């Protein structure tokens, strides 16, 4: 039986630490906007992984293949091609965002609150909601389902997006929670965030997948919407502090496939700590159709797949850094 005296003794240091952890927002109370928890993810880090996609990104890369993850708030996708204009969605909509006009559905996105009532009513799967407010505990519960698969393959949790640092507290809670549960953790980031924010989240990641679009200032600004300065600064911080980093470079015809771009990257990496791997991600068209579903325009040539010779050249240039370079379609 415990005496009253022991109960009032000062907490041992480990418990004090736990108490400090608990003083943060708990996993049950930390919410984020999650678009997908994708299991059997085998191209986002080592082993079999579960990738959690967070919504919201400060960049607007022209080729973005996940445009539904750019905005932070939940969105409704609508596919007129499979819509039968039955009107079931119209009656349900509390915001008057959907109307049946002359036998056609008119969807006014600006009024849509992404409540999802129309999605439940639509029997044609013409609608879906991207982004759901979810607690970190809920996400981690699902992530933990696949522990038997992580254990055998060296996999774990990858937090991706969008840009996970756009929901830094949530991303941190996920990575920390996974780390505390003994999982291997990966942060997939474009690096565009305040350095303290990045380092705070990155401390919980065993590996960082770091996107690098290019070195040329005008081009970078034009194709991503932001300057590369902060991105390069953060990358240098991580590499110089010995973080495990895989650099991932999207190769898009005419936008990022200039050999000079890769020469500049190689030169930059010669002045920093070494990344563990460089992955060239060749452009694919899988994202093109999503723009229509979001009522947006795709602004670059549909066929932006880089020439094979360009990829080879880029690989050769980057291999001069002495880092292993892989190419992924």
């Amino acid at each position, binding site marked *: 039986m415990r005496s009253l005296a022991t109960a009032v003794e000062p907490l041992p240091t480990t418990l004090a630490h736990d108490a400090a952890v608990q003083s943060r927002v708990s996993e049950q109370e930390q919410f984020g906007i999650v678009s997908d928890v994708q299991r*059997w*993810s*085998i*191209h986002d880090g080592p082993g079999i992984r579960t990738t959690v996609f967070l919504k919201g990104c400060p960049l607007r890369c022209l080729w973005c293949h996940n445009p539904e993850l750019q905005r932070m708030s939940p969105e409704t996708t609508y596919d007129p091609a499979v819509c039968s204009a039955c009107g079931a969605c119209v009656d349900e909509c509390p915001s008057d965002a959907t109307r049946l006009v002359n036998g056609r559905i008119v969807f006014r996105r600006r009024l849509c609150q992404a409540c999802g009532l129309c999605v439940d009513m639509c*029997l044609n799967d013409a609608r879906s909601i991207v982004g759901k407010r979810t607690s970190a505990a809920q996400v981690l519960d699902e992530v933990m389902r696949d522990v038997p*698969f992580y*254990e*055998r*393959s060296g996999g774990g949790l990858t937090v991706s997006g969008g840009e996970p640092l756009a929901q830094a507290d949530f991303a941190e809670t996920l990575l920390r929670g996974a780390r505390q549960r003994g999982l291997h953790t990966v942060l997939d980031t474009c690096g565009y965030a305040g350095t303290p924010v990045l380092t705070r989240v990155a401390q919980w990641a065993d590996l960082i997948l770091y996107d690098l679009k290019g070195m040329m200032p005008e081009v970078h600004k034009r194709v991503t919407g932001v300057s590369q300065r902060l991105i390069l600064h953060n990358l240098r911080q991580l590499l110089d502090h010995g973080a495990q980093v895989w650099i991932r470079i999207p190769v898009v015809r005419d936008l990022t496939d200039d050999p000079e771009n890769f020469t500049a990257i190689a030169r930059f990496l010669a002045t920093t700590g070494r990344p563990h791997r460089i992955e060239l991600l060749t452009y694919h068209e899988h994202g093109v159709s999503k723009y229509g579903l979001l009522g947006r325009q795709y602004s670059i040539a549909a066929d932006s797949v880089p020439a094979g010779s360009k990829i080879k050249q880029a690989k050769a240039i980057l291999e001069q850094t002495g880092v292993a370079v892989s190419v992924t379609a």
Partner: protein
Amino acid sequence: MTARTQKLKSIVLNRQPSIEADRAELVTAVYQENEGAPTVLTRARALERVLTRMPLHIQDGELLVGRVSAHPDRVPVYPEYSVRWIADGLGRGLECTEDLDADSLSRLEQALAYWDGKTVWDFGHRFLDSEVSGALEAGAFLHSSGIDGLGRIVPGYDQVVRNGLNHVIREIDARLPRASGQDATMLEASRTAAQAVIAWSRRYAGLARQLATGETDLNRKRELEQIAEICDNVPANGARTFREGLQSVLFMHLAVQIESNGHGIGLGRLDQYLHTLFERDLVTGAIDREQAAELLQCFFIKLAEIPKLRKAGSYRMAREGGISGTMFQNLTIGGVNAAGADASNDLSRLIMEAMGGIRVVQPTISLRYSPATARQTITAAAGLISTGIGMPAWFNDSTSTHMLLEEGVPQIDVWNYSMVGCIYPTMPGQSGHDASPGVFNMAKCLEITLNNGVDPVTGNRVGLATGMANDFKTFDELLDAFHRQMTYLIGLMMRPWPGIVAAYRDLAPLPLLSCLVDDCIERGRDVCADGARYHACRLPATGNANVADSLAAIRKFVFEQRLLTLSQVLEALAHDFVGYDDVEKRLARAPKYGNDDAYVDSIARETATMFCTEVRKYSDPFGGYYIPVLGVANWHWAAGSMTGALPDGRRKGLPLADGGVSAHYGRDHKGPTSLMHSATSLDHYMTGGTLLNVKFDPSVFLEAETSEKAVSLLEGYFALGGHHCQCNVVSTAELKAAQANPQDYRHLIVRVAGYSAHFVQLSKTVQDEIIARTAHSVR
């Protein structure tokens, strides 16, 4: 593949099978001469007659000899089991009779005429009363009631390889003085059978010698002389070389299948019992690794060559399902030794390499996986999977072992188990036949429940009146009605079976096979009469995923959200959803099994447990318990073709969910780890085997890194308690191209269920089902 094996393979692939009269004629004559003699003696004499009189043939280039008929394209007939369908179908639509010559036709007709009313089927059929027949016609369950021999057994070939058949004969002789009556007769019969096999092998030796004399090619002459030497020695005596070992196994394996046409005769742990010979030959330099691979390929071709005449009605869609050329000959590799350490070896890996080189659909290679299995064996297995032929199938040692312990196999023996049929662990040379009453159709059971005992497809009352669908107030009432219906229908299914098993016992004992199964000789009892040390009578079910998906849809939309009424659902089903698009689409949106969704997985677990518990209530004809199985070879098509539209959104006549614990094709969209969680939400330990199909896009196996991840996936499944997994590695685009241009894709092999088959030989329904299975890709 060498020039030799390439040529031998193409002969088998391009043959035009046609039935032959020899076996039927010889067997019939013996029966006529021996009327009144003990059946078991007649059986032994019949086998002896066939083996001493059947025409023999050695194909040019063959290194291993023997076959069940005189020629690769001749299919023998087994009138002891059933004849009416053969007699009726001769030259009139029965497969393999299209080009039958007039002489064979009349000889066959004459032989078959003797058998009407005397076969196993005739005897067993008497036990099918009107209730059983009604349910059978409706497709509530399917069984063959004595159409062909019992199968799914692994004979103890290892004993013959080691000691020779003469040793068995000596054992019989030693046992005989203590025997009397029936036991003595049985032992006499077994000795006759064993001696007949030796005589048969010596005939091959004679033929080889004769061919050698006339052979002008000196290399071939030498090969034929070697064949003669080998056939003089095995299977009479223990094998002295790896090649003799293979020839010994082959002779026994073929002779067992000349005695009876039951399929699913397994080869057991070939990599274990031939390993000593293999290793010794490599060390002494008698053969090198390439020659050993060529011998294995020759062996595989001989197994792929074994034909079987099948009744379309009993094995519905057998032909379309690619089963015509499939004898379910399981060859097991890997696993552990008696000390629990890894047993996989260089021969295990060479077997996989040789199969990767020759790519034939038989034998079915099964890998026993344990955490101790060597990495290089696992890498070799991943390499064979990546060729796309669906082999090896992976089996979890820990789950298999548990199943066998549950079946009564003692701990001390269980390490040596082997796979048989598609997915069953069994004890090689110790377990008896799988006398299975057939396959239970759970989806039809639900259909009958929803219609108050009436089968909506035939309109006949076949089940209990468990209540009108509209009267169910709660989901649990419906589930309870389903349970009662299942109890009743399983009872019907079991009802005739003891009689049918008795027919096998009394009319078709197997004196040769009894030589190869412990403790038949010791007990003086035939393997069909409870002579085997262990029993395993299994009862598989198909359609559990469809039942779970259907019940989940009803629970959600009828009882919870009340968006539909049960009568609306039934009306839509009665019209196969034509004109009821909204109902169909609504039902399709319910949670589906295969996505790690507890809402539906919990129902799947409940219905599967219901089935397993029901089946376990029955004693098998040998005093053991019936073992429920969640996995079927191709019966999900047969059962599906007889089942109407279902509340899970599946249309009438389409195949049910494939495998046994797989999701309904195309409904699993959350990746294979989620599928595997759903699959292991069911209790594999309650069963005697489960079957999971996983289809991968070839991209997964393009790089070593992702290919290793696929292996980790299978290992993770086993850590969760999964029993079996088999993989297709083929792109949807390639399957569609093969469907459109079959002539260009004759080589394409896919995993169907517990076996592989040539894709272009499958019917369109079956091809479509395989195309519709979810292809897991890199993401």
